[in-house]
């Protein structure tokens, strides 16, 4: 259970205070997959970084399993938009890095990392270096690294944002089946793509800009397990289109208000 209450974050930008997010309150239940979506500058990445414990909010609080967080914790793991792999370590050591940070012995962490690499489809790439892999494969390493520490909560910051459309689709499909096949865990997924959010999530948090705030929270009315066929379904299209146009309106309003 993640309880986000009254969260606010004020940065200093060019000497003046800039409100990144204001009064954000969301509860995320155990085992729930929630996407956070909104126009650029709505503070969705800031929100995720606060949940990850990498940023300290200027007001409000985040509690995980009833306990207020003060920094990163073993029950949370983060997947980064730009993969953020160690370029000087091979795939296996990268996937084992979270376990290494937590002090696990070499053989044990490598064994666990190898298991996770197999789950994300990177069997046989253990001794490759990140530069030898495509973006999609690098992000698979990023996901394996996060899964290896067996977190209750997986935080994902636009994990497929840097990938081409085709790779992206494949990654979504694989993440979905990985999610449905593995032990239940909570997912928080930041994205720009409404299709992606609807396809993957149980619930969608729509955020708006200036200040970054929650506009609306929408339950996704499709059960699990899901697969690609869902996306061809008329109900899915109607729902995704409805939310997409909503997002588009928000973005237009933001643009015209910037013009004033």
């Amino acid at each position, binding site marked *: 259970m993640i309880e986000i209450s009254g969260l606010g974050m004020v940065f200093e930008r060019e000497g003046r205070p800039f409100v990144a997010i204001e009064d954000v309150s969301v509860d995320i239940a155990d085992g729930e997959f929630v996407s956070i979506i909104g126009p650029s500058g709505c503070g969705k990445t800031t929100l995720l970084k606060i949940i990850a414990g990498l940023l300290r909010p200027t007001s409000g609080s985040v509690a995980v399993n009833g306990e207020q967080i003060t920094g*990163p914790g*073993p029950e949370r793991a*983060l997947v980064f938009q730009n993969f*953020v792999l160690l370029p*000087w*370590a091979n795939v296996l050591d990268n996937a084992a890095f979270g376990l290494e*940070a*937590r002090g696990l012995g070499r053989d044990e962490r490598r064994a666990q990392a190898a298991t996770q690499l197999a789950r994300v489809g990177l069997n046989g790439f253990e001794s490759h270096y990140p530069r030898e892999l495509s973006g999609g494969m690098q992000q698979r390493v990023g996901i394996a690294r996060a899964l290896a*520490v067996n977190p209750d909560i997986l935080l994902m910051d636009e994990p497929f944002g840097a990938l081409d459309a085709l790779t992206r689709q494949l990654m979504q499909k694989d993440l979905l089946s990985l999610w449905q096949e593995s032990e239940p865990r909570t997912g928080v997924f930041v994205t720009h793509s409404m299709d992606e959010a609807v396809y993957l999530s149980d619930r969608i948090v729509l955020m708006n800009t200036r200040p970054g705030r929650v506009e609306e929270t929408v339950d996704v009315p499709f059960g699990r397990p899901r697969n690609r066929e869902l996306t061809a379904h008329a109900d899915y299209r109607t729902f995704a289109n409805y939310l997409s146009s909503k997002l588009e309106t928000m973005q237009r309003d933001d643009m015209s208000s910037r013009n004033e």
Partner: protein
Amino acid sequence: MTTLAIPRSDRRLLVGASSLIIGILLWEVYARLAADPVFIPTVGDVSVAFLQLLAEPDFWSAYATTLEPFLIGWAAAIVLGVTLGLWMGRSTIASGLSAPHLAFLNALPISTLVPVVVIVAGIDLLARSMVVFLFAIVEVVLTTASGVRYIDPDLFDMGRSFSLKWGKRLTRIILPGAAAGIAAAVRVGTGRAVVGMVVMELLLVSVGVGKLISRYRDTFQAPRLYAVVLSLAIFALAVQAVLRRLEQKALIWRGD
């Protein structure tokens, strides 16, 4: 075409070697035709002198005398400089505290500090080591620090998200991330240390290789003077070659 059959890297080597040979030939021609052999000896004379020197124990003991402070000052500058550079690259406080001192040392021709060192520490091994150290330290610190600042900041966020301890952060992120910078720092610092070593012996304390140079200069033994200078160049080149090899080993993950 035969030239196209030679690989690019070999072609570069070939051009480099030809250029070197042309340079030596020009020297020889100039020495034979125009110059006074007292000032510009021929290549042959210098080569003979060089081989003679190699056979003399004086030559080797001069190098031993010179290399001792060089190694001490050099090692101290590398260890301290890299440590300080790593710290400066990561901490705004450390870089704020050291910035004025480094700016001062960087602006000042280090040779002017040699008399100061002599007053403080005399002319023995310690003093000479200090001069070598002073010549190298600033470059080592600054080059290392800029190498650290070049590390992708997201890597530190990633480490933090897994609660990475500071020791692992140093060995798994900072050191490998700054490896290129550290290697460059060692290379630049070594060059500076060689300068410091020679300057000290020529300017102030006539010992070691510097003493040989002064002696052959004062007695107009031009072939020997040139041979000693040549030996210094060979020494510096050999050190650079070893360092470059180490650098390649350290950066093997880059694959270039």
